[in-house]
């Protein structure tokens, strides 16, 4: 069976290429694939006939609980015969039907149809529920693509979307059901699920499982209230409608229901729901079928009614119901596909499918008319066609079942309506109304009429000689569904039985309907209540409502006001911390009070004061100065607490920030009018205050906890012995945790690239910036000072390993020297002094930093293992110096990129 599926799949990808080469006969060539598959299945008939089940399994993903298991029993076998057999006819038919289309489109159509065949075979052959789900979803997607095949038409697109959305909803329900079954049983085997039906129904998930399965089946088989997608799906090319939307795909829901009958039967309410839904579906569909104006939509509604009958039969108990279901499944597939083919020929020939506009086609389309008569007789249940036999079984099943008479009455009425529809779709276009069509767009051709004729003849032959099909397909199928062998006796004449009486009643009412179709039809069309109550509209409206709701919700959430965004973030963060602290239920601890040192305390308070002043400042310039004040006092705080490196860096950073932000402030207006109402300011202050309090609680509690870091102790020990440096902070930066520094260097480098890209002059249009007019003494002094600073920066770089300093601070100080230069002489002059472009410095610096780790790697040690050379006559030299030099260059280049860009941009 794997081989069959594989051939089917590969064939679906390869065979349609024939349509690119061959013109008219392509259908016949491509049909060889489904015919071959059909032959393969028929050859397996002897196995199935004996009631054996053919199983095959492959390991696919056992850890996921997914085994690729297939199983061929009687029920699957019946489906396989239908799927491959009708596929062959559909392909032949499509060869004739699509003659007007470009070759590329025809190829696409054949590919989709054959892929669909594969998906169908996979669904009915799957034993593992997961595998079934895989193929089930594939049928939905292929149906979507086929319904929307004529993708330029807006109606086709809408119909395709509707079909997909409904069936995908069902698919998700099936997914949920399968996963829940797997959860309950620990296995995804279908046989296991059927065997343990009681367990499933009794488990807490029983109700959701059954509900999900029912919804999945109802959506796929177009049962009320999900039936509305099917009539719309008639936008698909007719061969696809015949194949997917009447003969095979829509029967998958029935397949699922039949397989899971024991499961939903085990709940108290399962059967009731199924029978009720089926009856509603039948009634609605029968009325709509009589209302339908179009050939194809009349057929579509009658298909829904038939699916309703099938659903009803699955819902009823007793062996007769199963026999009737299997028989009707076969009969319906045969005659309905034939009728669709006929409808397609009419549409193809006249371009018209309104039943009232058609007439007298029998003269021009004689073979089609013949096929249509044959199929309709079967549909109407006239002996000796197969439709008659299946109808007998239907009534027998209903009489035997334990249900009240309501379903039976509905079934009689619906069947009568079906007779009416069968009569109307045959008589009106072909025989009544005189010759309305003289000019035909396309005539009949062999590939167009052979498939419906074949099906019609098959419908007759099977009922006259039912032996073979009963033996190989029907009896095993019934046995597979019912769980044990049931004697199936198919014959046209059973004697005078109640069923025969009912049949006669049905045909009688049906004949009346045909007679008065016009009146009934017009009366029904006039009743607008149908349009108002149409679920289709409801679906559309809810979809539109969903879109509108989504848009409104998104507009409300994504309003575009940055302040409210950030308020959500800070507020959310505060709430998160509050939740975490309260839920953790820990009590805050307090550290030892320690001694309060006056000077450091004052410095810290000055810093806090600066921050408060910054919030209250009216002018941005004042705010910047206040911010700077905070920065400097924090730098002092670092200094006072044994962190000279931090202090140096913070000083340099604050100085540079002042220079750079001044350039920015020179460009923008300094006065900043209030942008928040007092209420907003209050709420902002509250949020900020709460956030600050949370942080205090956390930090104080942390400081009260035990202290001690193994890493810190190790660095203190090894800094000189291993890292050859006295300044532990610097050794950490260039050696122990050099990789952080490397990353940070890259951060600065990228900031430089960004600044350059945003501030770069684009094009040659930029004019020379005027030299700033500053006092000559500043110029003279500035030059000296800048050279001094540059020299100092090199010293800081060099001694960094042992004393406070290093690449960062060095680079910042060097940048300060150029900042002075550009203040004194203008940007152009400073850039000329630098010679290389800032980004080139950055690039070289990056290369240095990165390369300094390579010697270690080459020497067989980890990257960034620093190597040392300690001659007696010279201070020790190490690769750390190259590393630090790289950092120096990157920092220098980056700051200069900012500086030059900002200054030039600001003075424009």
């Amino acid at each position: 069976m794997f081989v069959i599926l594989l051939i089917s799949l590969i064939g679906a990808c390869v065979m349609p290429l024939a349509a690119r080469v061959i013109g008219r006969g392509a259908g016949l060539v491509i049909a060889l694939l489904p015919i071959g598959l059909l032959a393969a299945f028929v050859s397996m008939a002897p196995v199935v006939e004996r009631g054996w089940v053919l199983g095959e399994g492959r390991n696919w993903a056992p850890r996921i609980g997914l085994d690729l298991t297939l199983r061929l029993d009687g029920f699957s076998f019946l489906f396989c015969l239908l799927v491959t057999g009708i596929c062959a006819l559909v392909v032949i038919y499509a060869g004739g039907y699509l003659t007007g289309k470009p070759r590329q489109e025809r190829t696409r159509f054949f590919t989709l149809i054959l892929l669909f065949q594969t998906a169908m075979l996979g669904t009915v052959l799957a034993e593992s529920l997961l595998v079934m789900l895989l193929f089930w979803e594939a049928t939905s997607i292929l149906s979507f693509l086929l319904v929307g095949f004529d993708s330029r038409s807006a109606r086709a697109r809408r119909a395709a979307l509707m079909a997909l959305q409904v069936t995908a909803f069902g698919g998700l329900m099936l997914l949920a059901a399968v996963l829940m079954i797997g959860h309950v049983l620990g296995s995804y085997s279908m046989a296991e699920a059927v065997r343990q039906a009681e367990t499933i129904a009794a488990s807490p998930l029983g109700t959701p499982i059954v509900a999900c399965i029912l919804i999945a089946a109802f959506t796929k088989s177009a049962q009320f209230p999900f039936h509305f997608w099917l009539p719309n799906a008639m936008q698909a090319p007719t061969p696809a409608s015949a194949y997917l939307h009447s003969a095979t795909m829509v029967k998958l829901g029935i397949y699922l229901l039949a397989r899971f009958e024991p499961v939903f039967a085990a709940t108290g309410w399962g059967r009731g729901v199924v029978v009720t839904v089926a009856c509603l579906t039948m009634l609605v569909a029968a009325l709509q079928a009589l209302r339908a104006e179009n050939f194809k939509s009349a057929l579509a509604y009658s298909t829904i009614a038939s699916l309703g009958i099938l659903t009803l039969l699955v819902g009823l108990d007793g062996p007769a119901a199963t026999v009737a279901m299997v028989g009707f499944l076969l009969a319906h597939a045969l005659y309905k596909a034939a009728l669709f083919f006929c409808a397609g020929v009419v549409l193809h020939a006249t371009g018209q499918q309104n039943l009232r506009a058609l007439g007298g086609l029998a003269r021009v389309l004689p073979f089609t008319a013949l096929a249509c008569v044959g199929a309709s007789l079967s549909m109407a249940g006239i002996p000796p066609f197969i439709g008659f036999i299946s109808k007998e079984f239907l009534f027998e099943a209903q009489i035997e079942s334990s249900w009240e008479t309501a379903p039976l009455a509905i079934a009689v009425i619906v069947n009568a309506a079906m007779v009416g529809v069968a009569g109307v779709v045959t008589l009106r276009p072909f025989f009544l109304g005189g010759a309305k069509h003289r000019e035909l767009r396309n005539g009949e051709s062999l590939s167009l009429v052979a498939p419906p004729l074949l099906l019609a003849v098959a419908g007759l032959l099977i009922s006259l000689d039912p032996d073979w099909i009963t033996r190989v397909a029907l009896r095993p199928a019934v046995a597979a569904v019912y769980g044990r062998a049931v004697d199936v006796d198919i014959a046209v004449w059973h004697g005078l039985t109640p069923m025969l009486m009912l049949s006669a009643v049905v045909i009688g009412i049906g004949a009346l309907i045909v007679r008065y179709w016009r009146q009934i039809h017009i009366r029904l069309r006039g009743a607008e209540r149908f349009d108002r109550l149409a679920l289709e509209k409801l679906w559309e409206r809810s979809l539109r409502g969903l879109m509108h709701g989504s848009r409104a919700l998104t507009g409300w959430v994504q309003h575009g006001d940055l302040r409210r965004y950030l308020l959500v973030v800070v507020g959310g963060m505060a709430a998160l911390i509050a939740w975490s602290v309260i839920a953790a239920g820990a009590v805050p601890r307090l550290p030892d009070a320690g001694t309060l040192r006056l000077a450091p305390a004052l410095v810290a308070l000055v810093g806090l004061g600066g921050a408060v002043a910054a919030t209250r400042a009216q002018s941005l310039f004042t705010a910047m100065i206040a911010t700077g004040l905070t920065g400097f006092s924090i730098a002092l705080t670092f200094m006072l607490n044994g962190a000279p490196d931090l202090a140096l860096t913070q000083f340099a950073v604050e100085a540079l920030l002042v220079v750079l932000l001044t350039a920015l402030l020179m460009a923008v207006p300094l006065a900043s009018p209030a942008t928040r109402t007092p209420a907003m300011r209050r709420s902002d202050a509250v949020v900020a205050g709460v956030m600050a309090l949370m942080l205090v609680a956390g930090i104080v509690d942390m400081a009260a906890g035990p202290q001690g870091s193994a890493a810190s102790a190790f660095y203190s020990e090894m800094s000189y012995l291993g890292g050859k440096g006295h300044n532990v902070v610097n050794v950490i930066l260039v050696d122990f945790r050099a990789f952080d520094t490397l990353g940070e260097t890259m951060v600065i480098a990228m900031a430089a690239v960004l600044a350059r890209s945003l501030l770069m002059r684009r094009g040659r249009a930029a004019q020379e910036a005027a030299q700033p007019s500053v006092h000559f003494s500043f110029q003279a002094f500035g030059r000296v000072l800048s050279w001094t600073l540059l020299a100092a920066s090199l010293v800081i770089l060099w001694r960094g390993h042992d004393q406070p300093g290093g690449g960062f601070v060095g680079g910042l100080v060097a940048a300060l020297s150029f900042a002075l230069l550009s203040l004194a002489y203008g940007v152009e002059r400073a850039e000329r002094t630098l010679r290389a472009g800032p980004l080139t410095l950055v690039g070289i610096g990056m290369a240095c930093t990165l390369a300094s780790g390579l010697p270690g790697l080459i020497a067989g040690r980890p990257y960034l293992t620093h190597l040392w050379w300690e001659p007696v006559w010279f201070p020790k030299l190490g690769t750390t110096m190259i590393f630090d030099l790289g950092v120096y260059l990157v920092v220098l280049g980056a700051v200069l990129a900012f500086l030059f860009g900002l200054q030039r941009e600001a003075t424009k």
Partner: protein
Amino acid sequence: MTCMGDALLLTLPVLVPFLGAALALLLRKHPAAALMTGLAASGFVLLASVALLTRVMVDPRVPLTVFGGWPQGFGIGFSAALPGSALVVVTALILFAAAIYAIGDIGPRRRRGGYDALMLAMAGAMNGACLTNDLFNLYVWFELALLAALGLLTIDRRPAQIDGAIRYAAFAMLAATFILIGVGMIYGMTGTLDIRTAGAVLADSPASVASAVAAALLLGGLMLKSGLAPFHLWLPASYHTAPTTVAAVFAGLLTKMGFYALLLVMVVIFGVGRGAPGGAQLTPLLGGIAALTMLLCVAGALGQTDMRRILAYHVVAQVGYMMAALALGTRDGVTAAIFYMVHSMIVQANLFFGAGLIRRASASWDLTRAGGIVRREPLFALLFAVPVLSLSGIPPFSGFWAKLFVIRESLDADMAWLGGVALLAGLLTIVSMSTFWSDACWKDARRTSMRAVPKSGLVAMALLSAATVVIGLMPQWLWSIAQLSARLLEGQG
């Protein structure tokens, strides 16, 4: 393989992009040379990362290198523990595809603006974040990724880009502050920055206010980075302004990097799923966050017609699924989250590639104007169908398994409601993506003259689509890797 080989393999995914970035920076005046540098470095990293993953899968001992040659725990270490090394492969794959895609998308002007250097720096940052063992180092890589991302975002200097970048930067700087304080507090409590050691120390100490605050800070900061509701607002406001290649890389990598860190911090340090003190109290919140993210962001996607914004919302919604898996608090939940992450990275990048090509062909980002692709570019439509179907969770593509695992594990963890929300979001995703397909591929475009899509774009998409199909057909591979990853994360390697 020798110890030295391990050190080399672990260093290359970071070193090569950085060296490439330095070179591209020096060569930025010559766009063709910069392009070659970017392409060669990306390709080389892909090879190296595959070698690294192979090494990990062959030999169960996890390769480790400590930079500077110091003992473990006293320097910054890289280890190829899963899922990091697997994510490096995916990252490299996406960046290589992006480098190919960029041939047809990124012109000389953008390359002169430093595109290649920025992209390579971002690649190095991603790989560094995936491999590092050190909490502070992780923070540094986040900052590097942020800077590179901002540079890439604003490379055209359009007002919308500047504005998007300001929003992004404001959020990201808040996030960085939260993360930094959180990291500092972890150091203050445990005296170490090594992620696993810190987790072990915290697990042995009683719950405290400090650990609760630190857990919340890190969770919040990383939620900002990964775009989880209600902190997702920056993402749909900025992603869509970037050039296509950049947006694709953002969608594929940035948020996932955030989520990976979230996973790492929550599972390894705060022991979500182990009931360890510190983070256990946050677990109930995660489910709510996940549900909110999924529904809010799918709704966001439904309300748009700009292709980039639709996809940007889907990016966030997908993170919601991952969070849902993590919120289950079981090991299989973590496995599902990792599986989902890998799937989503590839698919999201591919979707943006596709949207870019649609825009190329039909000259509009707007779905009401774009169209006609399936008739003009059937090959492209086929390639594009793969990520579309995968995002919608249709078998046999990767997204189906990803969704299936999340829902299955939610059942096993007795949190079926979260699975139900995931199903609902899945249905809405299908609605959104089917409309997308119908509008972009079926409908006729407003403009009648359509341009051809560049070959390089198709090659890039083919690469990622192939990966999606392979994961879809052989989910077991990725599932085993994810399972192993979850075990390692929980410290039971």
